[in-house]
């Protein structure tokens, strides 16, 4: 009898300790129509690399001590330029990530899936197609404006997604809400994804879109967005060929505090990868305004680049 009482007391204490230790998840305020409030202008500036350094293996999160040391480490910026290249100095314009506030994030990489935090390889057949496409593209890389990358043409930038990812500078995201809709847009290049909230996938008429056809629904406080039908003009990360008809991106946005959300993503396409890849990063409301990044209207660089190549060809006698 005494043993039973002891056991009961132990169990009750353990239960109490569990409940005391587990903090209640953040309860976001609600819009007047009942959706969790996630609207605002956010920054996702970070020094966390997209892919995990290979030497870290499957280590997904730094310890508190390790993070304290590296939270101010220089960001590794994904870009085709190197600072010693023929380029302006990004820091002169405040465009280094380290020159702007970063969102707290003790992760070792944005990618969390696969477990090693690195992109899965393309399927062998997809890699063959991709390599061939890349070779063709490079043969004609400067033939015309239409042969330049989407980014240089100011059509679509890779970080706009889906999925979103931090982009090194001007890395702001606006979330807007109204009854039945959520809008996601990045500063660069002002593309706004108007996402209907629905009980099931709406009929998009079989029509692709540059950023796919998205629809969302709330699971508790998490907005779950599914995107399919990404246009064949867009190639996903690591591939020079587009997604197939079963390509899909799932995004999840969950408020985690009065000024923060967690953004998660999962990308899958059985024609390109044998496994899905995905990850997460936090975003934090910023007092800074999101400014217009008009791109195409000021894109002197594109015709100047083509002009330069045409001059070189003329000098070498390769064109009329």
């Amino acid at each position: 009898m005494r043993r039973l009482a002891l056991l009961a007391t132990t169990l009750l204490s353990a239960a109490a300790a569990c409940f005391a230790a587990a903090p209640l998840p953040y309860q976001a305020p609600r819009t007047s129509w009942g959706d969790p409030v996630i609207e605002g202008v956010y920054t996702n500036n970070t020094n966390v690399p997209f892919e995990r350094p290979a030497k870290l293996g499957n280590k997904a999160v730094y310890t508190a001590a390790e993070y304290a040391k590296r939270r101010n480490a220089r960001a590794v910026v994904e870009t085709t330029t190197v600072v010693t290249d023929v380029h302006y100095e990004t820091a002169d314009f405040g465009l280094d990530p380290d020159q702007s506030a970063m969102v707290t994030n003790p992760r070792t990489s944005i990618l969390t899936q696969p477990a090693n935090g690195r992109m899965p390889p393309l399927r062998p057949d997809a890699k063959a197609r991709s390599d061939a496409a890349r070779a063709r593209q490079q043969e004609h890389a400067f033939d015309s404006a239409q042969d330049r990358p989407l980014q240089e043409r100011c059509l679509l930038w890779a970080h706009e997604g889906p999925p979103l990812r931090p982009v090194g500078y001007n890395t702001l995201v606006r979330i807007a809400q109204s009854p039945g809709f959520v809008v996601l847009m990045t500063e660069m290049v002002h593309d706004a994804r108007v996402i209907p909230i629905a009980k099931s996938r709406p009929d998009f008429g079989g029509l692709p879109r540059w950023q796919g056809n998205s629809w969302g629904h709330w699971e508790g406080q998490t907005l779950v967005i599914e995107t399919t039908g990404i246009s064949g003009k867009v190639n996903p990360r690591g591939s020079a060929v587009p997604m197939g008809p079963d390509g899909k991106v799932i995004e999840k946005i969950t408020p985690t505090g009065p000024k923060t959300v967690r953004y998660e993503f999962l990308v899958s396409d059985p024609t390109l990868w044998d496994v899905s890849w995905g990850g997460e990063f936090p975003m934090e409301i910023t007092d800074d305004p999101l400014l217009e990044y008009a791109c195409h209207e000021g894109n002197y660089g594109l015709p100047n680049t083509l002009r330069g190549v045409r001059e070189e060809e003329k000098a070498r006698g390769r064109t009329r």
Partner: protein
Amino acid sequence: MMPTRSPLVAMRAALALLLLAAGVPARGSDVPRTAAGHPDLNGVWQVLNEANWDLEPHVATQGAVETLGAIGAVAPGVGVVEGGRIPYLPTALPQRDANREHRRTEDPEAKCYLPGVPRATYLPHPFQIVQSDTDVLIVYQFAGAVRAIAMAGHRDAPVDSWMGWSNGRWEGDTLVVDVTGLNANWLDRSGNYASETRRVTERYTPVDANHVRYEATIEDPAVFSRPWTIRMPLYRRLEPDARLMDFKCVEFAEELMYGDLRRKEAP
């Protein structure tokens, strides 16, 4: 003998017109409202007029590209300018005429430039108003143009931009938006234009659940002798699947803008 309408019907119609002119929603209207009591402007909207061809009253004329035949021709319009004509300063008219002459290559719309305010409103494309309890965002199908209307914390434009800097407030049931910091831009396909010193005041007044009365007053002492106003209805797109689609027109403008820089093989 012609049948006549009952006097009561005529009076009711006159009253509705008076109220419409005064910017007051007709009595008994079903303008949806937000929890805060303001008109709910959420939805997909579009104009039904020829303002984008030419804001002023105009007859049908040959288009800038003759090979498009009747498809490229300028549709006639009764005009949307209060008072009929845009009050250009005499010194500013030559620029308008030069614009008109070179519109095939110089119209920013042809180059897929962001259209600015108020032209974004009356392009032949829908736009969506995204209105929450606190914020208003307008997303335009044309070139993916976007405007955030600051409903609080108004500040001056930190820089000039194509879509301008918008500070909004409610005056009764009218959403009033002050737009400054706009780049110089054209106002229609006929070369009407305004400079970077312009200030635009928009007024969105719902008439009923599916119509909004839109007015825009343009003030630009560098180009016009006085402020002037355009006025037009906005119609709700009522198709059940009405939605914005992609019109990322940069790819349609590249040949026009950069075609001469294409590589030509040596003979």
